[in-house]
C-alpha cells in the first residue's frame, strides 16, 4: 500500500467504525429510541462511505431518504407506541428467537461473503473505467428515464400503493357520527 492511500484508509476506518458501531447499537441498546438514533448514525456512516467512493449522488440520496425520511418516520412510530418504561423496550424475547436470529445472521454473512468472492457468469472482473468528465448524475438520470423507465415507474406505483394503503388504514369510519369539526373551522358553523 502506498502512502497516498493512507488518508482515505483513515477516513474509511472512521466511517466503518461509525457504521458497525451504529449497527451494533441498534441491536444491543435496551431503549428502542436509542436504537433508532444509532441507526441514523449508521446511515450517516454509509453516506460518508459513498462520498469517499466519489458516489456523491448516492451519498446525498442516502442522507435525504434514509436519515431525512426513514429514520424520522421510525422515531415517530416509536413515539406513538410509547411504553411506560422506555428503558426496557428493546429486548430479546426468548432464547429460541435469539438462536434463530443468530442463525439468520450467520447464514446472511456466509451468503454475502460467497457473493462477494465469486463471479457471476458473464460479469467482467472489473467495471470498465468511465471516460473522463462523465457526469454520473446526468447518465444516471438518462438511464432511469430511458432504458430503466419501466422499473422506475413500477417503483413509483409501489410507493403510491403504500400511500393509499396508509390512508386506508389511518381512516376511521364512524357511521353514527357526523364529520369532526376541523380546528380551523371553530365558530364558523
Amino acid at each position, binding site marked *: 500500500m502506498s*502512502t*497516498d*492511500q*493512507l*488518508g482515505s484508509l*483513515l477516513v474509511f476506518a472512521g466511517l466503518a467504525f461509525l457504521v458497525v458501531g451504529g449497527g451494533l447499537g441498534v441491536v444491543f441498546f435496551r*431503549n428502542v*429510541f*436509542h436504537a433508532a*438514533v444509532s441507526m*441514523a448514525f449508521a446511515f450517516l456512516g454509509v453516506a460518508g462511505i459513498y462520498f*469517499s467512493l*466519489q458516489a*456523491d*449522488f448516492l451519498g*446525498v*440520496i442516502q*442522507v*435525504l431518504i434514509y*436519515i*431525512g*425520511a426513514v*429514520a*424520522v418516520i421510525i*422515531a*415517530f412510530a416509536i*413515539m406513538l407506541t410509547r411504553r411506560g418504561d*422506555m428503558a426496557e423496550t428493546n429486548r430479546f424475547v426468548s432464547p429460541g428467537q435469539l438462536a434463530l436470529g443468530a442463525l439468520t445472521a450467520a447464514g446472511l454473512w456466509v451468503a454475502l461473503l460467497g457473493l462477494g468472492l465469486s463471479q457471476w457468469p458473464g460479469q467482467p472482473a472489473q467495471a470498465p473505467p468511465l471516460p473522463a468528465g462523465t*457526469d*454520473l*448524475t446526468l447518465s444516471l438520470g438518462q438511464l432511469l428515464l430511458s432504458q430503466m423507465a419501466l422499473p422506475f415507474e413500477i417503483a413509483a406505483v409501489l410507493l403510491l400503493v403504500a400511500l393509499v394503503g396508509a390512508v386506508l388504514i389511518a381512516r376511521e369510519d364512524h357511521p353514527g357520527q357526523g364529520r369532526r369539526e*376541523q*380546528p*380551523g373551522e371553530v365558530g364558523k358553523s
Partner: protein
Amino acid sequence: MGAHQGLGAYQAIVGWMTGLGVPDWLAGILYRVGAGLLMMVFISVVVLWLIYMLRKEMGHMQLRMGPNVTGPLGLFQTVADAIKILTKEDIIPAAADRPIFMLAPFVVFFSTGMLYMVLPLAPTWIINNVNVGLLFFVAFGSLTAFGIMMAGWGSNNKYSLVGGMRSVAQIVSYEVPMVLSLLGVAMLAGTLSTGGIVGAQRHVWFILLQPLGFLIYFLCGLAETNQTPFDLPEGESELVSGFNTEYSGMRFALFYLAEFANSFAISAMITTLFLGGWHGPVLPFLPWLWPFIWFMVKTLLVVFVMYWIRSTWLRLRIDQVMSLTWKVLVPLALLNVFISVGEMAIVRVIGG
C-alpha cells in the same frame, strides 16, 4: 476526491506543504481540516453580525434603539452575550434521556455546518464543488429535523416534545414544495452543482425567469429554519420556547448558533440560485475580492428581508401552516415546473 477540488488554492497550498517535507496524505488532511476551521470562523463571525443586525433592525422597526451601550453603536453586545452564555452552567435535567439530550445540539449544528460546504462564496471560494451540490444542501437541511426531534424527545418535557414534533412535521412537509421549486432552476441551469448554477446566471438572474420559484423557495426557507411566521416549534407564548426549553449554557448556544447560521445559509442559497450569486460589476481596486463582496451584499439583503418579516408578522397556527404547504405551495410549485418547461422550449426555439 481529487476530481472536484474546490477552493482553487488546493494545488498551491498542498504543493507548498509537500515542499516543506510534509507527506502527501498528511497535507491533504491538513488542508481539509484547515478549510473546515476557516469555515467555522466564518460561521461564527457571520452569526455574531446577524444577531446584532436582528436586534438593531427589530429595535428600529419597533421604535426602540436596540443594543447601543456596549462598544460603538452597541457592536460588542453580541460578543459580551456570547462570553456570558459560554461561561454559564450546562444544566441537564435529572429526568432527561441523557445521551440523546447531550447529542442533539451537535447533530443540529453538524447539519448546519455541512450546508456551508457547497456555498459558492466567490468563483473559487467553495469548500467542495460537488456536482450534486443542490441536493446536498437539501439533504443536510433536512437532517436538522432529526436533531430537533432528538432534542424534543431527550428533554423529557411535554412542551419540548410538542415543539420537536411540530418542527419535524413542518420541515418534512415544506421539503416537498422546496424541492419542486428548485426543479425549475436545475432545469434552466442544466446542472445540480451550485457553482455551475451561478455560472449559468452570467447574463440573466434566475429571479427574472423564475419569480414563482423564488417566492416558493423563500417561504419554504423560512419554514425550514423555523423563522416567523413559521416559528411554531419555539412558540414562546404556548410552548415556552419549545424544543430548547431545557437547554442552557453551551448547548443552548449551539442551538442559537445553528439557528442564525441556518438563516444565513438559506439566504446564501437564495442568492446563489436566484440572485446571480457572486456576479456583479468588478472594480479595478482589489478585483479578486469583489465577487465575495457582491455575494455578501446580496445575502445580507435577503437576511434583512427575513428579519423584516420576523419583526412585523404574526405567527401562523399549525393548521394554517400545514394547509399553506399542501394546498397552496405544492400546486404552485407544480405549476412552476410547467412554466420552466415552457421557458426551456422558448429558449430552444430562439436558440439561446
